[in-house]
């Protein structure tokens, strides 16, 4: 039971608007992380609008699926999507990273509705997801836990501690999605810390490993469906993405991990994003 072509098209069009809005916000406040926000766009959209049960009217609904954006620096895209879903007014987005705003530089659970735990220090989100998944199993709650990791984040040793735990405790209610954009802050993954065969790594850690096209809503949704069928072990979806996706000069460029956008670059970005279908 895949997603209809029409629905996927609708969500991909929504993603185009999210990209425009996030670039506009980042340009306005002159701070924040464009590269990873653009790469994770379809993954978050597929979850919040299609695959993960979530209820903006009751963010703590026990029946909700839990979504943890471990790569917390992609907060601008998360915030844009949470606002679209109705967790908080879209007007709040203008206060991104500003003093007094609930939209802190990295997601904060006691400020922003829809955020489960604070994230930002890399390498810890998967452990939280493991704890949540175990807790749900104890409570016989059928909800799923989705944890979105950056690939640079996989440098952190704690990720692999958590991966071993997920496997030991047979967490088939845990679905990890790696935003595999191949670029981290100082350079490419290959230059900074090669991940080698990531699929084999996760296989060896006891995961059922899937891969998908990380900018295709349909492929992400189908792959999540397949991951949900896995029993007695955790799943990981390696979503192939492009850092800075949609803005040609940002694509694959580590310099756009967290750089402010000047007016010339801003205009180019918007022009390009508006031209995409």
């Amino acid at each position, binding site marked *: 039971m895949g997603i209809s072509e029409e629905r996927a098209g609708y969500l991909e069009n929504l993603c185009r608007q999210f990209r425009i809005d996030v670039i506009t916000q980042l340009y306005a406040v002159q701070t924040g992380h464009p590269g990873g926000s653009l790469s994770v766009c379809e993954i978050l959209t597929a979850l919040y609008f299609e695959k993960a049960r979530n209820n903006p009217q009751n963010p703590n609904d026990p029946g909700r699926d839990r979504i943890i954006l471990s790569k917390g620096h992609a907060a601008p895209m998360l915030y844009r999507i949470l606002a679209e879903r109705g967790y908080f007014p879209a007007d709040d987005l203008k206060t991104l990273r500003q003093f007094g705003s609930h939209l802190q530089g990295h997601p904060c*659970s006691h400020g922003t509705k829809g955020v*489960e735990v*604070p994230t930002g220090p890399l390498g810890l989100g998967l*452990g*939280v997801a493991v704890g949540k998944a*175990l*807790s749900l199993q*104890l409570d016989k709650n059928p909800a799923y836990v989705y944890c979105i990791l950056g690939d640079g984040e996989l440098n952190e040793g704690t990720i692999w*501690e958590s991966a071993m735990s997920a496997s030991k405790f047979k967490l088939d209610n845990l679905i990890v999605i790696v935003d595999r954009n191949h670029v981290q802050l100082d350079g490419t993954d290959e230059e900074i810390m090669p991940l080698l065969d990531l699929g084999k790594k996760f296989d060896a850690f006891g995961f059922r490993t899937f891969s998908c096209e990380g900018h295709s809503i349909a492929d992400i949704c189908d792959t999540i469906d397949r991951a949900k069928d896995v029993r007695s072990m955790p799943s990981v979806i390696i979503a192939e993405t492009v850092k800075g996706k949609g803005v040609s000069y940002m694509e694959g460029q580590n310099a756009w991990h967290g750089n402010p956008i000047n007016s010339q670059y801003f205009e180019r970005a918007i022009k390009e994003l508006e031209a995409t279908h």
Partner: protein
Amino acid sequence: MAATIREVYGNALVKYGKDDDRVVVLDADVSSSTKSNIFAQTSGERFFNVGIAEANMVAMAAGFASEGKIPFVNTFAVFISTLGTLGARTFAGYGRAPIKFMGAYGGMSDAFDGATHHAIEDIAIMRAIPGITVLVASDAVLTDWIVKTAIETPAAMYVRLSRDTMPDLYRPDEKFELGKGKILKEGRDATIIACGIMSGFSLEAAYILEKEGISVRVVDMFSIKPIDEALIKQCARETKTILTAEEHSKIGGLGSAVAEVLAGNGLGTPLTMIGINDCYTQSGPYKDLLKAYELDVNSIADKVKSCIR
């Protein structure tokens, strides 16, 4: 022979946690040392051995806490206060997850394992993290109360325990309060504000000094954060000098916390810190180590005498 603090802790976990489904216990492959294995034996479905992976243990605890559980994380104090701190800061402090960080083998109580296993900076580290209550067990009755209180109080807590026995200070029906120290003995000439095993030693030193005509008040400041400012101020007014006594570095621990209160309130009462100098400790029998680092009863008594001279 009295029970060790770690045994008292393990038994208290069972006593208060066995029938409370919210309580989950995590250990990093040292459960037979921390005695969290006593809980594992009675409530195995809520006990999780996560292997030698302390940082992940804390992150998992944050996950449990965010689902309404009361997670107790267990490993040696020195490891929880180093490998566990990013998670402690991010989730327990900033994220307000009511994780209970149980620091086994506090101070030099893991005596023979040496400096790598002695926790002498844990209080300083955990005290610096906003939002984390810091408690130090000083006897069996208090340890039992701390476990009960940790379950009843929806706050993040760091608790320093011990591998060893401690002198009995309290009757089984003693009442405690978070943020309130306990006067163990009245005195006029000096006050010793102590925590952990040093509270019992200080009391013993005070009784020795009493025979020599020196009247010493002893306070068990088991709640390092929040600290009992009122009691510290009262002691500063009522006794001529103050000493602090802790099995911890002199930097950042109880002594520093008391100094902050005195200086912050413009109180000029002389303060002498008994603790471990800015150095690393050695292996050896626990009693010998306490003596070598001048944390034993006689050293405390000598220090008091030199202060009031």
